[in-house]
Structures are given as structure tokens and as C-alpha cells.
């Protein structure tokens, strides 16, 4: 379980996150949604301690991520897997080497064991046989899959995905969503997805947190989001033409 408590962060006197709190439970796919510039990615970076908030804290199974020495932090980091927006694959390494990288750096596993683990992860994301290719030789959707494979290679307890659907066609987006959901359920991990994609919201949102201008305005799930009457949330949800027509009963 991940718990964020009263996170606040500003840049140059501009408040980007204002006292945001929430709980992300194990075995659930939790979504943080909101329009661009509402602080979703900053919240994720605060949770990963890539950006240190001015106030508040993040607890991983009760362990405060901002307190403690580097070794304690490293222990928590080893339980994390992160899919970055662009995949963040290392350009100079092959797909196989990218996925194997955390194993090389953080474990004492033998070469054979590592190879098997990488093959397992590649198979999990449906990319068998592509291990020898360079990141520049694969499509955007494949890069996201490789990013997911690298994120899960260490058997993480916490999976973070920053806009996993950005830049992808609708069909590939759905496949990526399904993959994230499947991994969350199969490995019983805590997954946090940053997105503004309504398809994702409706299909994989076990829990949804809506941010608006740095504040948490609403919390619910994919069943309750359509019926709620927070004006800012309504505006966000029903700017989608299909959903708007559906609501109008057409």
C-alpha cells in the first residue's frame, strides 16, 4: 500500500500541488487523472522522490520514503518499477540489455538466471524474439512494452506508469491498459497510473483520483465517475465527444 499525506509543491511561487493526500491499495490499479498542467506528473515525481515536496510525505507500507538513510531508500526503490512517458529506454543498449539492466545493477543473479527472467518478461509483454533489437528500431507501442518489461523484471511491489498511452493509437492504448491491469492482478501489486485518457479511466480504474489546479477535487472509481457532479470533473470527462453523446442519450 502507498499512502501520500498532505503533499505540497511549488515552483517559483506557483503552487503545483496543494495538500494532496490519498491511499493506493495493493492489487488495485489506481489512476491519477486531470488535465495537462494539473500536477499529475509532479505528484508522481514526488512519490518517486525525483522531486522533493515542500510539505507532506509518502509512505510505502508504512515506511516513510523521505526519511532514513540511502540504504533504506534503496531497499524501497528496489520494490518499485516505473514506466516513463517515453519509455526512457537506454539508447545504447538492446531491448534485452535494457530489461536485464536492473538485474545487472541490483542483483547477484547468474547470467543464465538473468536471461531466463528477461525472456519471461519479454513473453509477458508479448515481445518474444525482439531482445536483440535496439530501441531506435522498435515502434512507440513496443517501447512502452519494453518499458513495462523493465519495470516488472525485479518483481516490484509498486508499479508506476506515467501516461502509458501517450502517443499511441487507440488499439495499442487499450492493449497497454490491459497489460497493466493483467500484471497488477497477476502479481498482486500496487499500481499507480498517471493518465488523462478516458478509455483507461473507464476500463482499468479500480480507484481514480482527480486533480485540478494542484488540488485533489474528487476520488472514486470507474463506476462512479460518470455519475458525479463535480463541475470540473464533468468538464474533464465529458469533453470527450463519445461520452458526451452517450450522456445525452444519442
Amino acid at each position, binding site marked *: 500500500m502507498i499512502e501520500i499525506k498532505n503533499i505540497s509543491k511549488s515552483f517559483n511561487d506557483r503552487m503545483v500541488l496543494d495538500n494532496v493526500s490519498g491511499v493506493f491499495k495493493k492489487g488495485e490499479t489506481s489512476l491519477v487523472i486531470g488535465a495537462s498542467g494539473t500536477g499529475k506528473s509532479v505528484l508522481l515525481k514526488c512519490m518517486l522522490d*525525483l522531486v522533493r515536496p515542500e510539505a507532506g510525505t509518502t509512505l510505502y507500507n508504512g515506511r516513510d520514503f523521505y526519511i532514513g538513510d540511502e540504504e533504506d531508500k534503496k531497499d524501497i526503490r528496489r520494490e518499485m518499477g516505473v514506466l516513463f512517458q517515453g519509455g526512457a529506454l*537506454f539508447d545504447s543498449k538492446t531491448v534485452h540489455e535494457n530489461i536485464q539492466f536492473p538485474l*545487472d545493477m541490483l542483483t547477484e543473479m547468474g547470467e543464465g538466471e538473468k536471461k531466463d527472467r528477461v525472456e519471461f518478461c519479454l513473453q509477458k509483454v508479448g515481445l518474444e524474439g525482439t531482445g536483440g533489437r535496439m530501441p531506435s528500431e522498435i515502434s512507440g507501442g513496443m517501447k512502452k512494452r519494453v518499458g513495462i518489461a523493465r519495470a516488472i523484471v525485479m518483481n516490484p511491489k509498486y508499479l508506476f506508469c506515467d501516461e502509458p498511452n501517450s502517443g499511441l493509437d487507440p488499439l495499442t492504448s487499450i492493449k497497454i491498459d490491459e497489460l497493466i491491469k493483467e500484471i497488477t492482478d497477476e502479481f498482486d501489486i500496487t499500481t499507480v497510473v498517471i493518465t488523462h485518457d478516458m478509455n483507461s479511466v473507464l476500463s482499468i480504474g479500480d480507484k481514480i483520483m482527480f486533480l485540478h489546479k494542484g488540488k485533489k477535487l474528487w476520488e472514486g472509481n470507474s463506476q462512479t465517475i460518470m455519475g458525479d457532479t463535480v463541475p470540473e470533473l464533468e468538464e474533464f470527462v465529458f469533453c470527450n465527444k463519445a461520452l458526451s453523446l452517450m450522456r445525452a442519450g444519442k
Partner: protein
Amino acid sequence: MLSVIGRYLIFLGKLFTRRESLKVYWKRFIDECIGIGVSSVFIVAIVAVFIGAVVCVQTRANLVSPVIPVYVVSNIVRDMTLLELSSTFMCVVLAGKVGSNIAGELGTMKITEQIDALEVMGINSASYLVLPKLLAAVFTFPLLAIISGFLGIFGGYLAGTLSGIITPEDYIYGIRYSFIPFNVFISIIKAIVFGFLISTISAFQGYNTRGGALEVGQASTSAVTNSCIAVLIADYLLAELLT
């Protein structure tokens, strides 16, 4: 300005704290030696040979007095090459080649979140990425300075003897005449210091890139400019200190 120097010093401190295992650095060190050192041999060789040749021709053209013996030409080629050209001039060239490469590579890694990916894994990204580059530069720059010194003198020999400016015997006599071995040591010391400055300043610029492709370009330009300025200042200080 002071805050930038402060951030640079903090960045240097970060390179030596929370390091990964030596095995990890060894492989990266070898890769960087190839990227920084071996791949620079060609440009260093070309520059050294031609600068040596030009110094020989220019010196002869300006030494028109009949009372000055001709072997002085190779004497001057030797000292100029060892004291300035093989270290300072070569490092200014390398600041352009190696410095922009380091800043561009790290800047791109920064804006594509590859550095964040390392940090999230609990890896000290500055140390993992920059320390092998720094060690490789400090190790290979003196070797390049030695190659450059040798080829510079050889370039002078070729230009001098092929154009009839000086006989091979006079050239070799001049090279040997009043040779101070300490000058070779000065060249190596300079190359080590310049290697340190170029690699760390360029890495600092690249590592702190914010924004997009435009900013990566700006970081590369700043890396080359700042490295060259630092090399020239260090060159003056070392000249005062060592000669």
C-alpha cells in the same frame, strides 16, 4: 557565477559518493576509453602533424638571420609542441569533440528521462554515468598528448626535410639539443588537468539540461565554451606553477 561554481563542486562531490561496484565501472571505463580516447586518435594525429609542419615552416620563414643556426627551427618545434601544442591546443580541439559529445549524450538522457530511470532504480546516476567518463579522460588525454607530441615533431620533420628547409641531421640535432625531459612531464600533467576539466564541465552542463532539443544544443555549446575557457585559465596557472 558563484552559485554555478558551487553547484559544479556539489556535482563533483556526487560523483564520488554512493558509488556502484568496481565491476560496473570497469566495463564502462573501457567503453569510455574507446569513446573518448581511441576515437579521438585520428583527429589528434591530423591536427598534430599539420600544426607541427606549420610551426616548422613559419619558424624558418621568420628566422632569417644568418647567425642563428638552422637546427634552432626543430628546437622551437620541439618546445612549442611539448609545452603548448600537444597539450593545450590538442585539448581545445578535444573540448570541441569530446566535450560536446558528453554534454549532448547526458543532455539527451536527461530530457528523455533516462537519468530519472537510473535514479528510480536507486543508482547514483551522476556517478554511474560521469565517473567512467572522467577516469577515461584523465587516463587517455595524457596518452593522446604523447601521441600528439610525437606526431607534431614528426610533422615538423616531414615539412622541414621535404621542402628543403632543414636537413634530417640538423632537425634531429635540434630535437636533441638542450632537451629538458621535465617538459614532457609538464605536457602530461596539463593533459590530466585538462581531461578532468573538459569531462566534468561538459558532464555538468549536460546533466543539468532542462527542456528539449534546443536546450541540449545550448548545453553542448556551453560545454565547449566553458571547457575552453577553463583550459586556458588552467594553462596559465600551470605555466606559472610548473615553469
